[in-house]
């Protein structure tokens, strides 16, 4: 008999535990947000992300955000990045070329990684990044600084709301995306003497560029 059928057989032969547990009546989101107007979501997202240790900049439009990003990239000659098609900064590709900044793959020496996001979670200040063509995972992982560009219409109240939205269908439905990373702040550890330290193996700095429009 295979281990599979042996295991399933033993489980099936047992008296089922927890027969009394009722079906789900109502479910609460872990972070309860009463107000979910776009402005409220932005406010929650910014304060939660700052609390996680992210550096957050809010811009009125993408031109301001692009100018900020280019200033940040001034000393760099190469970056890890998503395909510009997935970063909501029109003109980014041309500007990088103009400045002679190369977009490379998986180079561990590069200092900055630039990505868009698939969603932002207001309740926890988290960034949701789905893998895919043109969306390398290493851009948000290898460099010491991860810059994520988020637009206000990408915000959801929390993990529950976003999962419900993608379950309803669409291209990012779980199962069609090989990997989903929900990122909540800079990489951290408390393993040395219970002292909280940022930047272990992942980025020690996360900059969020939030665009209002």
């Amino acid at each position: 008999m295979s281990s599979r059928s042996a295991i399933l057989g033993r489980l099936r032969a047992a008296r089922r535990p927890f027969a009394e547990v009722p079906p789900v009546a109502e479910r609460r989101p872990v972070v309860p947000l009463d107000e979910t107007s776009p402005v409220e979501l932005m406010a929650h997202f910014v304060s939660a992300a700052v609390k996680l240790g992210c550096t957050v900049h809010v811009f009125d439009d993408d031109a301001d955000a692009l100018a900020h990003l280019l200033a940040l990239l001034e000393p760099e000659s190469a970056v890890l990045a998503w395909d510009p098609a997935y970063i909501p900064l029109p003109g980014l590709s041309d500007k990088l070329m103009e400045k002679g900044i190369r977009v490379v793959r998986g180079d561990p020496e590069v200092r900055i990684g630039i990505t868009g996001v698939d969603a932002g979670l207001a309740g926890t200040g988290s960034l949701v990044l789905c893998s895919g063509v043109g969306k390398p995972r290493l851009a948000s992982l290898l460099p010491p600084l991860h810059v994520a560009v988020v637009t206000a219409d990408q915000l959801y109240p929390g993990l529950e709301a976003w999962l419900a939205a993608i379950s309803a269908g669409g291209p990012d439905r779980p199962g069609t995306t090989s990997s989903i990373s929900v990122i909540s702040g800079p990489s951290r550890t408390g393993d040395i003497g219970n002292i909280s330290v940022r930047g272990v193996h992942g980025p020690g700095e996360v900059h969020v560029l939030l665009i209002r429009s």
Partner: protein
Amino acid sequence: MDVKANHFITTAQIALSNPQLQATLAVCTRNGLQGRIAGVFEFGREHGEALRRQAAEAKRRALRNLPELLEQAEARMQANGMRVLWAADAAEARQYVIDLVRQHGARHVTKSKSTLTEEIGLNPALEQIGVEVLETDLGAYIVQLAGEAPSHIVGPALHMSKDDIRDLFIRKLQMPFTDRAEEMTRFVREHLRRAFLQADLGICGGNFIVAETGSLCLSTNEGNGRMVTTLPRVLVALVGIEKVVETLADFATLSQMLARSNSGQSMTVYTQMIHGARGAGEDDGPEEVYVILVDNGRSRIYATDYAEVLSCIRCGACLSACPVYASTGGHAYGWIYSGPIGAVLTPLLVGLDNAAPLPFASSLCGRCKEVCPVDIDLPRMLLDLRRDLVQQGHSSALWSLGLRLWAGVSRSQRLFGWGRRLVRWGMRLIPQRLPGPWRAWTRHRALPPPPDTSFHALWRAREAARRHEQ
């Protein structure tokens, strides 16, 4: 990992006389408890308790339908492109990994922290066939470097002070001197970089598997988990069969309660959902993903009154809350699981004979149940295990004789009355100051004066008075 749980009394005594361990435990259990309160009750006690109920019910529904959910999860994971293997016990799970390592010609293996792989003794088995296995979670890396066993399911190196770790890094890695945790961490970051990039096979555990979508979910903080699941060509995940949950909504509740109960974080830094190998045209990610569903005693526990213990999501809250763990630390428990959850899980997994003292390593204060995000009734199970021990003859002859005598005396009114009188007399004979080694005890304590009359006599007088009134 050898089970040394039967030496609990000795190992606990060693821990109690280690002043540095005591100081470390005091800090980390206090931080753990405070973090948990801030996290779970951030939106008020009522909301926090409602979430505990919601989380407990999610796990309980999942356990009730476990065989069906495992089949559903398997089908979904296969449809997503993952290979699913079933291991009945530790030996089979190890063999699967060894076969995969050989099949893919892997020489360098990186690991993200997994308690299950400690449970099945995976690292020594891989080292035996000449494969280099590197733990990459900072705490797990530290204990691997020190040649020690993890002392905590979440923070494996919690028993070591910053100075211990500094000395270890200087001795083993030639780290330039520093006394700052930040610089020590940066040093390890640089040191492990090459290993991540060089590895050809990654091994991770799994916090949850979502049956409806076939998602393998990992909650981590440092980023090593993402490295291990992204960089090597082959990814092997070992997951206990009890980790499956029904829906994404259940996963959302449980993963957030896991983080909040452990450290008070709203979510762990990285919450990953893996659905398979890299897709066509993707730049990175593993080319093959294997999920090994490990039983190793769980289906046996499932059929007992201890099935509830399978709800555990390994947050570590009960460790911080336990006065025994806070005094002895994790190593005293003699195996990978410690604290109240270890006192229940270890005997169930390795047999009561191999962990007889553990069900007694508790004051039954009930705090472990109170802080558990899935409301596991650990005190109830600790008591039941004690009963099982007695029924299996694990009680000393003298103790049994004493209890039998007591039972006989208290069942007979006459014998009980004589005994009572004997004790009252006896108490008068004991001097207020005891001699010899007992002096220390009576120096600051006084015996209560023997009562003038007994409860039985009072009761009889009361009943007589009442009858008289009628």
